[in-house]
């Protein structure tokens, strides 16, 4: 019973804070609210006996991604309040679509005999995860490292300016960013 209570608690935390993320017009508030969403998901993982996943969720998403998001918001000049109105013309179709999608998923989730697993014991999973990363799943594990490498190179290519500004030639005075080529 206390398990049920915890589940509904985490679920409510996740869903309600997710609503706030979407509907808040203040991007800093939305970012902070995301913290609770991610934490709620971590709680759900923990309840599914995925302790390592839950810890990773907290460390990577809350500790890393979320802090980055907030830093980005602070260091760029995005207007704190949402720019422009959120007109009904866009809100209504989006809302209808979202509701239809929800109805569809609700029908799927409630009307389906899922391939359920017996409840597993809440033993630590870390050792078994580590073992399978280096045996059965060694290929995807290494594959992910390639994805991360590609992402790092990508970030360097898209962001880093290797060339000194004086190298810009005749148009040195012109702003180096946002130039449109061949226009």
């Amino acid at each position, binding site marked *: 019973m206390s398990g049920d209570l915890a589940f509904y608690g985490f679920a409510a935390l996740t869903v309600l804070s997710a609503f706030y993320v979407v509907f808040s017009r203040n991007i800093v508030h939305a970012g902070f609210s995301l913290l609770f969403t991610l934490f709620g998901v971590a709680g759900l993982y923990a309840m599914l006996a995925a302790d390592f996943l839950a810890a990773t969720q907290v460390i990577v998403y809350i500790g890393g991604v979320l802090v980055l998001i907030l830093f980005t918001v602070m260091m760029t000049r995005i207007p704190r309040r949402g720019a422009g109105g959120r007109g009904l013309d866009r809100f209504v179709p989006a809302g209808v679509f979202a509701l239809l999608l929800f109805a*569809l*998923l609700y*029908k*799927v989730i409630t*009307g*389906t*005999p*899922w*391939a359920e*697993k017996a409840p*597993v014991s809440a033993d630590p*999973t870390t050792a*078994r*995860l580590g*073992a*399978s990363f*280096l*045996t*059965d*799943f*060694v*290929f*995807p594990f290494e*594959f*992910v490292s*390639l*994805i991360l490498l*590609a*992402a790092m*190179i*990508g970030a*360097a*290519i*898209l962001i880093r*300016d*290797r*060339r000194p500004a004086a190298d810009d030639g005749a148009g040195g005075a012109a702003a*180096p*960013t*946002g*130039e*449109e*080529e*061949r226009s």
Partner: protein
Amino acid sequence: MFETLALNAPSWSDLRHFVPETVLVVTFLLALMADLFARGRRPAGPFALALGGCLVALAAAVSSLPAGPRSILGDLVVVDGLAGFFRVLFPLIGAITILFSWASGEIMGPRREHKGEFYALVALMAFGMCVMASAADLIMLYLSVELVSLTSYVMAGYMRTSLRSTEASLKYVIFGSVSSGVMLYGLSLLFGLTGETTFVEIRAALLAGRADNFALLVAMVFVLAGLGYKIAAVPFHFWCPDVYEGAPTPVTALFSVGPKAAGFALMIRFFYTTLLSPGGGQAAAGAAAPDGVIVGPADWPLLIAILSVVTMTYGNLVALRQTNVKRLLAYSSIAHVGYLLMGFLMLTAAGLEAILFYLLVYAIMNLGAFLFVIALNNRLGGEEISDYAGLSTRAPWVALMMMVFLLSLTGLPPTAGFIGKMYLFAEVINRHWFWLAVVGALNSVVSLFYYMKIAKAMYFTPGERAPLRLEPLHTAVLILLAAPTLALGVYWTPFKNFVDRAVAGFAGLGG
């Protein structure tokens, strides 16, 4: 899932069947390292390494044929005829892209940075596409799609000082992450329904009737959305024209054939393996195609047929209005996806053969058309149709080669495109989808109009008369692509045999 964990590490000997892919990864890493030592305006080291690596991978892939069905790397990857075909195609596409990037101002221009990394990324993308074509498990399906997407985002935004390129990259990222999220949701539903992650096991679970049909339909439509985004089928195409227009043209050329072909490979393997029960037509083996029987009551062929018709019609009609050649070719590539989907829904070996043959032909002719755009962009600095006015007098041979590509894209004899379309339409008619064949034929007629708009500008619109000389490398590769486009239109038997063997060795159909 972990209770049944058996500690069986994939053995090193598995890599013997994974040589082309291994070569591509090593190429990627070496090219990256070589870039550290690259000096001068052009990074010759990474270029030579990437090109050489792709060619070695190509040679390894060809020599590994016929690739017998074999599950490797913990049953997550399968090497069979289909994978064998695509791992010949992708290093080839990679090599051609690398070749014509070398002389392209958009990639190698004086204002560009990170030129070495570009070649490394092409090799990595080729690797990702090869894995897409041989993924046999939901995990590898998702990871390989992500790897190809990530490298694509970076390449689309490669001209980071260009607003258009940055916008293209951003649009690609946003659409890409949404569709991969939708796909991931579909995959999770599928796992929930069947409790399995391997395609073959999923089919076994579905055949055992362990899945609710409605939920299965929703899950599969979600997966289709993710893969449909990769091949840019309507209604998942919104990113396509903007990305194609904004990305550097060599990258656009790569996008228009590489990820599309990889998406088709993955779609074929995933849907045919999970949803077709084998043995339906195996009893009547021999001349009869090994048709499968679809699991579940959903009328998938009709659904895909509608998708196909909408895709080709939309692509062709919107292409009519374009004046920018890159945009025009983007819409035309959407239309070609529609034609290819016709073969996909036949669920027959002949349909698959037609798809693979058309993909091969399409890769050659579309790369050719884009190379023409690149080569002229280097000289004229633009890619509007009006820029090509009077080209037949300025560079008659180049105009002629473009004419060959355009005729082939339309599907007129005596070009490879005609043969490709012939096989596609023949199978559609054989299977009594007459209305689909009629719509396809009408669409081909429509496409003639906009392809000929380019031809008209080149041949009949008066323009400058000064002779135009292209980069020698560009001319050489253009000839390299135009020759097979013509030759395959006259003598295509070896290639047809090559494709037939690939389909015969496809584990999903052959059982």
